[in-house]
């Protein structure tokens, strides 16, 4: 089985948020429930200030702290699914311990105050156990893997678009949207990225493009000191997270 990994080249990323939008459309997430997001950081002062952006999916950690803490095994790492970390919505009790334990802040409890008004959950009230039921939905639903629209009271997160990548022919080293016969299997964020800053492939295959990029361009994992060992690597200048600083007090 492949070990799916993602590579994000920050020298190419323009911070356009197309990936964020594509993810929200693909996975029917609510505003604020950004399984994929582009974070912005700024440092320094004009005229030498720097602005960084950092696309951020779930890192599908090799040693995922979210999995270690989950009391119900609702959150699990599936080695038969390329090492993707899933949430089984039939098992999750909504204790939110995984959200405490994930160092990357990429898990969501959508049963919270809406980010934007009007609340989409009021406009499209949930049916069939869903938290909300918009008229256009991805037909792919797999609650055992946290795919589709979740019920109330559970945690959701990025699935590396498992409903797509799982259909790729076995042994494919890279899922590259530029190859016409593979494009349907490419995660939505990767497929949509206009400057082609995102790559997706098999980290267990030394020949894969993702491994070559990591090797040639000195790929790094963010917050590597946590020991979570992400399956998402970053390339290019600015691959790092500045330490937290509070807003200057007036």
């Amino acid at each position: 089985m492949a070990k799916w990994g993602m590579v994000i080249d920050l020298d190419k990323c323009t911070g356009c948020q197309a990936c964020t939008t594509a993810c929200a459309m693909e996975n029917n997430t609510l505003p604020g429930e950004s399984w994929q997001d582009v974070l912005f950081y700024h440092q320094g002062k004009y005229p030498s200030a720097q602005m960084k952006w950092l696309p951020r999916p779930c890192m599908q950690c090799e040693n995922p702290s979210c999995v270690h803490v989950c009391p119900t095994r609702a959150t699990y790492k599936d080695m038969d699914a390329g090492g993707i970390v899933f949430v089984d919505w039939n098992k999750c009790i909504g204790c939110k311990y995984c959200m405490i334990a994930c160092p990357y802040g990429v898990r969501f409890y959508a049963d919270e105050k809406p980010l934007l008004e009007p609340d989409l959950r009021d406009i499209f009230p949930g049916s069939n156990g869903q938290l909300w039921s918009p008229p256009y939905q991805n037909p792919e639903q797999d609650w055992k893997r946290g795919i589709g629209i979740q019920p109330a009271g559970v945690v959701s997160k990025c699935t590396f678009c498992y409903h797509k990548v799982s259909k790729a022919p076995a042994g494919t080293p890279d899922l590259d949207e530029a190859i016409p016969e593979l494009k349907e299997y490419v995660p939505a964020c990767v497929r949509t990225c206009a400057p082609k800053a995102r790559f997706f492939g098999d980290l267990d295959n030394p020949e894969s493009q993702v491994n070559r990029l990591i090797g040639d361009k000195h790929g790094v994992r963010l917050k590597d000191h946590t020991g979570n060992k992400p399956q998402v690597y970053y390339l290019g200048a600015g691959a790092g997270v500045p330490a937290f600083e509070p807003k200057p007090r007036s």
Partner: protein
Amino acid sequence: MNQENIMKGPAGIGLLAISAIVLLASFGYAIASLMSQGHAAFNATSTVPWGQPIATYLYFALASSGLGLIASLPLVFGFRKFYPVVKRCIFLAFAILISGMAVLALELGNVFRMLWVIPLNLQIQSAMFWMGVFYLVDLLFLLWKFQKLDAGEWDSKTSKQVGIGSFLAVLLASGNLALIFGMMSMRPFWLDGLLPIYFYLTAVASGLAALVFFTYLAHGFSRDNMSAPLRNLLEGALPKFFGAVLGGTLLFIAVRAITGMYSNNPEIHLVWSEYLFASPVYQASLWLGIVLPFVLMLTGSMRNQAGTQILVAVLVFGGLFAERFFFVVGGQVIPLFKGTWEWDILSYTPSATEWSLTIMGSALLFTLWVLGERLLNLSAMPPSAVMQEGPAAEAAAHA
């Protein structure tokens, strides 16, 4: 002595009625808002997932553990002076734990699912799994121990064994509860291998506050209504012990604050400087809820007065509740990996629904406690032979 328990009379009926009304009203409000809005009725969010209901649960669970530890003083360690409060301690520990669990149940996303997914999946890696196991064992031991004492078995071999079992269950339950936080390296404000010790200490402090308050309340806030051994305890060992535990609590807070402030890690020192010490509520709860009670308990003449003890108990209730709240929220206020979306310390203030859960838990505690005082004999003491110290007394007790 029970004739002087005012809870057995009309005062008890009055308090029972008030507590039951508050319980129903707060439960009704919480359920209504949860049914209509789901957990959007909470102000906890994906960035601060654990809010006041978790802090309330923590407060209650630890107060219960504290009471369990106090009950072990006579039952396990032979501090016989504590016998007069032991039944009340155990009953209160039970009632507070049930109240805390009720609050937690309404906080979880899918509470009933817990009943089958936890036993069927046996995720022994998770500290939260062990929390369920240990607190369940703790609850069963409390009931068993209470039943033994209620049957008059103060000093039998089984009651001693149950006492030891219960003591171990309390240590495991509250120590593991500490590690739920203490093992989180990604939340450096909590990360601390000694957190169980801090939890034991503060658990006993909140347990003593509850014990003092409810013992006085049962006796109409008057020592004249109390039995002689109980009066002796309240004028001697108990206030000294309370003072010492408050001192230990302060020491722990000071050490955590000093290491936290000194640390370069913004995820620790900013929590202290920009969140805890910057909050007037935290400051007030620290100075009025922990430092002042400690000062009041320092001199013998002050600490032995009933008025001081009641005041200290009430202040410590508030002080330690705030301590739990700021501890739980403090571990989450530095946003993880959010960039400029969250470029300041996160803020969290509980919503009306979250407050209603805290009120509901407290009302449930009062309701259960008054029922306990009315239906059971919580002031019961062992026969005088067991009460006396020394080998002769022990021999007499076994005879």
